C-alpha cells in the first residue's frame, strides 16, 4: 500500500471546492435562465441555461479530477467511506444528468437535478474527510467495481427522481393554470351578464371521485417530499456548522462523541452531565440499552430543523404550498419529462443491478463465503431494486403512466437514499465500516 501523498490529497480538496462552486453557478444560471425566459416571454435569457450546462460540464471535470487526485493520493479507489462515497454519488448523478441532457436537451431539468448533486456533495462534508486505510475486508478489486457502478446506477435514479418531480410539478402547474383560466372565464362571463357556461370547460375531462382523491393526496404528498428534502438540507447545514465550529460532547470516556448538542444521550450517560443550556439539562433524556442515542439525537435535530425551514419557506417565501409555488414557475413538456424519467430508470436499472446486486453478491461470496446474507444494507438494495422493477412493470399497465409512475420514481429514489444513509443511521449490519455520524 502506497503511503498517502498529502499534496494530491490537498489538491483533491481544492478541486472539489471548484466543482462545488461550478455546480452552484450552474444552478443559479439554470434558475435565472428558465425564470428569466418565462418572465420576459422568451425574449431574453435565451442562452443562460446553456451556460448553466457549460458550468456543469466544468464542475464534473473538476470533480472527476478530484476523484483521480484522491485515488492517486491515498493509493486506493475513493469509495471506501461515507465521505468518499456520497461525493462519488454526487459526481455520478451529475454525469447521469449530462448523459440524459445530451439525449434530450431539456435545460429546465438542470434546475432540478443540479440541486440534488449540490445537496449530495454538501452532505458528504458531514462525514469525516480523513483518508482511512483499507481494512482487509475492503482490499479487493470489487470495492471500486461494486461501489462505483452502484453509485452510477443511483446517479441515473437521481435524474429520474428530478425528472419525475418536475413532471409532477408541471402537471400541477398546468392544472392550476387551467383552473385560473376557468375562473377568469367565469368572471368575464359574469361581467357580460351572460349565463355561465354549462358543463365542464373544454379540454377538462370530468374526474372520478377516485381520481380527485388521488390528485389531492398527490398535492399533500408533494409537500411531504419538500419537507423531507428540507430535513436533509437542514441537517446538513446544522451538522456542517457544528462540526467546523469544533463543538464536541464526549460520553462514556470517548465511546461516543456528539457534534450536535446532546438532547438525547447515549446509554450509560447521566441526565444533565454536560450542564444545561437555557435551563434544559444536557442530555435531557438518556436512551435505554440497545438504542443508539447519538443517531436518535441527530434524527431529532433533523426533524425539528426541517419543520422550522418548511414553516418559514411556506409562510414567508412561497406564501402557500411550496409545490404549488414552484409548479406555476416551471416549464417543460410533461410527456418529454415522463419519457426522460423513464429513460433514466431504464439506463440506471441495469447498471444498478450489475453494480449494486450482482457484483455485491460476487464480492460477498469472495470475502465472506456466501453471496447473500440478508444483511440490512443488501436487503435494502434489493428493496430498491424491487421498487424499480415494480415501476417498470407498472408502466406497461394501463392507467399507470404519468403521475403514478412518476410517484414510483420519487419513492424509488427515497428508498435509495434510505439504503445509503438511513440504514447506517438506524439499522446495524455487516456494512458497519461504512458508518458515519
Amino acid at each position, binding site marked *: 500500500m502506497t503511503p498517502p501523498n498529502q499534496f494530491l490529497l490537498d489538491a483533491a480538496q481544492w478541486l472539489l471546492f471548484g466543482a462545488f462552486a461550478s455546480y452552484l453557478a450552474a444552478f443559479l444560471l439554470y434558475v435565472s435562465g428558465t425564470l428569466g425566459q418565462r418572465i420576459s416571454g422568451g425574449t431574453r435569457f435565451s442562452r443562460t441555461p446553456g451556460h448553466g450546462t457549460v458550468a456543469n460540464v466544468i464542475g464534473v471535470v473538476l470533480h472527476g479530477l478530484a476523484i483521480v487526485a484522491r485515488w492517486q493520493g491515498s493509493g486506493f479507489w475513493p469509495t471506501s467511506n461515507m465521505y468518499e462515497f456520497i461525493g462519488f454519488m454526487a459526481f455520478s448523478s451529475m454525469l447521469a444528468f449530462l448523459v440524459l441532457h445530451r439525449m434530450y436537451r431539456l435545460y429546465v431539468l438542470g434546475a432540478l437535478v443540479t440541486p440534488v448533486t449540490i445537496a449530495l456533495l454538501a452532505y458528504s462534508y458531514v462525514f469525516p474527510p480523513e483518508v482511512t486505510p483499507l481494512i482487509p475486508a475492503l482490499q479487493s478489486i470489487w470495492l471500486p467495481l461494486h461501489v462505483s457502478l452502484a453509485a452510477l446506477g443511483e446517479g441515473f435514479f437521481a435524474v429520474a427522481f428530478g425528472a419525475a418531480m418536475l413532471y409532477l410539478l408541471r402537471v400541477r402547474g398546468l392544472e392550476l393554470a387551467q383552473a385560473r383560466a376557468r375562473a377568469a372565464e367565469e368572471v368575464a362571463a359574469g361581467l357580460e351578464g351572460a349565463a355561465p357556461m354549462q358543463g365542464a370547460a373544454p379540454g377538462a375531462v370530468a374526474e372520478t371521485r377516485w381520481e380527485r382523491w388521488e390528485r389531492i393526496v398527490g398535492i399533500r404528498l408533494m409537500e411531504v417530499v419538500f419537507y423531507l428534502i428540507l430535513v436533509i438540507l437542514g441537517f446538513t447545514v446544522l451538522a456542517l456548522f457544528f462540526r467546523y465550529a469544533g463543538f464536541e460532547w464526549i460520553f462514556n470516556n470517548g465511546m461516543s462523541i456528539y457534534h450536535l448538542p446532546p438532547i438525547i444521550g447515549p446509554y450509560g450517560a447521566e441526565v444533565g452531565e454536560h450542564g444545561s443550556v437555557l435551563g434544559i439539562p444536557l442530555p435531557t433524556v438518556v436512551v435505554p440499552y440497545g438504542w443508539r442515542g447519538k443517531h436518535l439525537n441527530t434524527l431529532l435535530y433533523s426533524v425539528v430543523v426541517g419543520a422550522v425551514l418548511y414553516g418559514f419557506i411556506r409562510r414567508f417565501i412561497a406564501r402557500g404550498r411550496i409545490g404549488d409555488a414552484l409548479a406555476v414557475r416551471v416549464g417543460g413538456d410533461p410527456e418529454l419529462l415522463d419519457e426522460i424519467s423513464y429513460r433514466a430508470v431504464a439506463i440506471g436499472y441495469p447498471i444498478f443491478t450489475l453494480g449494486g446486486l450482482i457484483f455485491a453478491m460476487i464480492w460477498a461470496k469472495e*470475502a465472506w463465503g456466501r453471496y447473500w446474507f440478508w444483511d440490512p444494507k443488501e*436487503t435494502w438494495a434489493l428493496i430498491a431494486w*424491487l421498487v424499480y422493477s415494480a415501476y417498470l412493470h407498472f408502466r406497461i399497465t394501463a392507467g399507470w403512466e404519468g403521475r403514478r409512475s412518476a410517484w414510483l420514481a420519487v419513492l424509488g429514489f427515497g428508498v435509495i437514499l434510505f439504503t445509503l444513509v438511513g440504514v447506517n443511521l438506524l439499522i446495524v449490519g455487516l456494512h458497519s465500516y461504512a458508518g458515519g455520524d
Partner: protein
Amino acid sequence: MALLDRTWDFFASTKVASWIIIALAVASILGTLIEQESLYQDWRPPHLYYPDRYGEFWGNLFMKLGLTHTYSSVWYVALVLMLIVSLVICSLHRLVPLHRMLTRPQVWKLPHFLRKQQVVLETAGDLDQAEAKLKRAGYRIWRDRECLYAEKGRLSRYGPYILHIGLLVVGFAAFAKALPGWDEVRDVWIPDGQTVKVPGENFAITNHKFTMELYENGLPSLYATDASIIVDGEEVLRRTIEVNKPLSYGGWDIYQASWREEPGVAHLRLVEADTGQAVATIPFDLRDPAPEYAIEGTDLKLVVLTYLHDFILDPETNEPMNASYEVRNPVVFAEVATADGAEMVGRIALAMAGGQQAVYMGPYYLEVERVDSRWYTALKLHHDKTVPYMYFGLAIVFVGMLITFFIYHWQVWVREENGEILIGARAHKNRFALTREMKRLFGAPQGEGQSSNDTA
C-alpha cells in the same frame, strides 16, 4: 376448469405481478427493522432474547409471526413462490402471441392504421426509394403490393423473457440451498504449526503460520494464513489464505474468518530450593501437556499428576475442575521422581497466572520463566453447489436487461398512394430517437398520431 382459468388470468396480469413485487418489498422491510435470528449479537437463544429485546408481548408476537426469521418464514417464501408463478404465467401468456406477431408481420395496412402511429409523415417518393433508405439505416424489409414494412431491433422484445428465464435460474439456485448437501459449512480452528482434520471430509489443513498486521492507527491491514491441504499425510497444495483471497480445494472454498491468541507454551524453570539454582527449563504445553518430562542432565523426571487450564474449585463438591474452555488460570500439580519412577523426590503445585509462588514439598520448586502465545487461525469452509447456478442465472438476467433496455425495437410501415408515400412508425422504446431518425430519412414529420396529447 373455471377456477384454473381464473387463476391463470389472475397471475397473467402485470398489475398483479407489480403488486406482488411491492408486497415482497414491504415484507423485506419488516425483516430489516426487526433483528433477525441469524444476525443479533447476543448469546441467548431466541425465546429468551426476543421477549427481553422487544417486550414480552411484541417479542412473542414477532416470533409467532416468523418475523424473527422473516426471509425463511412461510409467508415470505409463499410470496416468492407467487412471484415465480406470476413470472412464468405472465411470460408464457405474452411470449407466444408476441412471437407469432413478430415472426409473421402484417405488411399490408390501411392508411388509417399508419396515421395512428407515433411518427406519421407524408412525402413525395415511391416504395423503392423508401426501401433503399430504410435498408441503408439497417432495417429489415418486407413488401406486399403497395405496402412496405420495415423493422429493426426485434430482439429487444425478447429481452424481458430472457431476463425472466435468468430470474427462474436465480430462484432455483436460491431454493436449492435447502437441498441436503448443497450448501455445507465447516469451521476449523488451527493453532500455528498444527494440522486439523476437516470433520466429515478426507483431508486435513495445516496452518504453518497465521499473520496479522496493523496500520499505525491500530486498524488491521492484513490477516493471512500460510496453509497446506493434507491428504493421507501428504501435502497436495500450499497457499496463503487472505481475506478476499480464499483457497479452493475439492469443491470447498476455504476462507480466512477469524483469529485468536491464547497462552500457548509456559517455559517452567525447575529450581533447587536450597541453592536457588535453576536445574532445567521445561516447555509446558498449556493445552496439551505431556504426561511426564525428562529433566536433562539429571536422572530425574517431572510427572504431571493433574493439570487444569482454568482452575476452579467446584462450589458443591469442592473438587478442582475447569471453569471454562479457555486457558485462563492454568494450575499444574506435579511430582519430581527418579527417571525409572522408582522413587518420589518431591511434589509441586503451581498456579501460573499472576506470578504466584509455587507450593512445594521436597528440594525442588517450579517457577514461570515466560509464556509463549499460541495463535489460532479460524478458517471457514464453504461447499455451495448453488453458486454456479446463481452466477449463470445472474449472467442471463444481465444479458436480458441489456437486450431489453439498450436495443430498441422500431417498426415502420410505408404505403404508396398516387406518387406519394405515407409513413407510420412506432417505437417500443426511445421514440424520440425514432422521430429523429425518421426526420433524417424522410424530412420533418407532418404530425404525430393519437398517442401524443397536446397538454403542453
